[in-house]
């Protein structure tokens, strides 16, 4: 219940900040890759917000579901719903912008990088996250974020998309009940 004391930023506002920060990174040979599911929602919205630049540089995009690369697969097994990864472009020599919703331990990023390399050798990978909530366990950190919040390990920050497509952040306690 301590979570109630923290006021969470508005996700749609953060998205605009993220778009502004992303714009200067767009150039030819860049590609966007969203990590399921929050990262994909963000990417879809960024593609619209940055439409002109995306078109000008002919920037391609894809999605990753990192389930098969997770290091906790043996403990957690496969989720009932996993979506196929779709990378419809050559990864070789591309500047990849990897998009995730909430950056926490860095394990998802590691899994995503491992998967990307199975498609080819990118020229570079930049990590973009809506929120960095602190608590990384690996020498990985996002280069671009719209907000940095420090949360307790017992708290779980999630990006939610409602029926109208609007994004919001939600704090849950680890047991899964809404705080």
């Amino acid at each position, binding site marked *: 219940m301590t979570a109630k004391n923290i006021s969470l930023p508005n996700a749609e506002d953060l998205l605009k900040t993220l778009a502004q920060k992303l714009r200067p990174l767009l150039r030819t040979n860049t590609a966007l890759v969203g990590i399921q599911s929050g990262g994909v929602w963000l990417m879809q919205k960024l593609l619209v917000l940055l439409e002109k630049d995306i078109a000008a540089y002919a920037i391609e995009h894809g999605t990753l579901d990192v389930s098969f690369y997770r290091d906790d697969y043996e403990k957690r*097994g496969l989720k009932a719903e996993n979506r196929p990864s779709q990378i419809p472009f050559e990864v070789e020599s591309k500047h990849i912008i990897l998009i995730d919703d909430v950056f926490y331990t860095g394990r998802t990023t590691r899994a995503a990088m491992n998967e990307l390399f199975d498609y080819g050798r990118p020229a570079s990978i930049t990590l973009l996250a809506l929120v960095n909530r602190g608590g990384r366990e690996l020498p990985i950190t996002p280069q671009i974020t719209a907000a940095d919040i420090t949360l307790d390990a017992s708290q779980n920050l999630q990006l939610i998309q409602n029926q109208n497509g609007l994004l919001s952040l939600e704090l849950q306690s680890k047991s899964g009940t809404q705080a």
Partner: protein
Amino acid sequence: MNNPQLDVDGYLRHLLSIEGLPKRILNQILDTAESFVGVAEREVKKVPLLRGKTVCNLFFENSTRTRTTFEIAAKRLSADVISLNVNTSSQSKGETILDTVDNLIAMHADMFVVRHSQSGAAHFIAKHVPEHIHIINAGDGRHSHPTQGLLDMFTIRKYKPDLHNLRVAIVGDVLHSRVARSEIHALTTLGVPELRVIAPKTLLPAQVEKLGVHVFHDMKSGLKDVDVIMMLRLQNERMNGAMLPSAQEYFKTYGLTQDKLGLAKPDAIVLHPGPMNRGVEIDSSVADGSQSVILPQVTYGIAVRMAVMAMLAGGQGSGSQAGSQV
């Protein structure tokens, strides 16, 4: 009765037969397989899910396609694979099945893919092994061949996504076919509304209607307006005595030719589990024709087997490692 295929939490522990698996699990396997299809089209055709695991193909009966696809599936999941043709090794020296299995477990095998000419062989092994070992039935006698049934469902779903609106015909040697049994259970579990079997009386098991199928003895009425035709192989090696006049006679009546295919819906698809007897149950022009999905079946078979292995190896994990020998 408890289901040996599921653990206490309802996760898949062994894959022994489609019979007894809830729709939820079948759909989860098919959905997971969807994600594995793309892996084969990438630069590196591997995911690290079964890294460090050892999968043992235990084939007490010959098979090329099934063994190869299981081997490829396990390797694409980064497992180490050992394939044993047991009829040419220790078994011929008199070792029992369970001794063979125990020896491989002592070598730290994690998963067994078992094919045997005796119905129930995979169940028998599954009952015997410790908790952390997983068994996949790759065909046992006339009983079951669950991954073939699943890959057929996957293939049908790819071409005809709305399973609740399909008319499906299974044609041929249902009596000797473990594939047919697995297909029938899978199709009914997944809610296919009309299921037909077409075969001469001598090649149908007694009371096959009880499985929820409509029985036809001629192709003309049986194939009328069907969406999916699932051919079965005429199993010469399993036939004892004269169940059929001759292969030529069989082809004339039950062989799938372009003419007979014309009775089905114009966009009907044709499946066959292989190996095909061209000119016996299927004409070459149909097998190689535009409505045939026989080779896609093989490709999808790898993704489906990857999905099964991935689901078996994940989820149960910690706690059960000690394993209690039953």
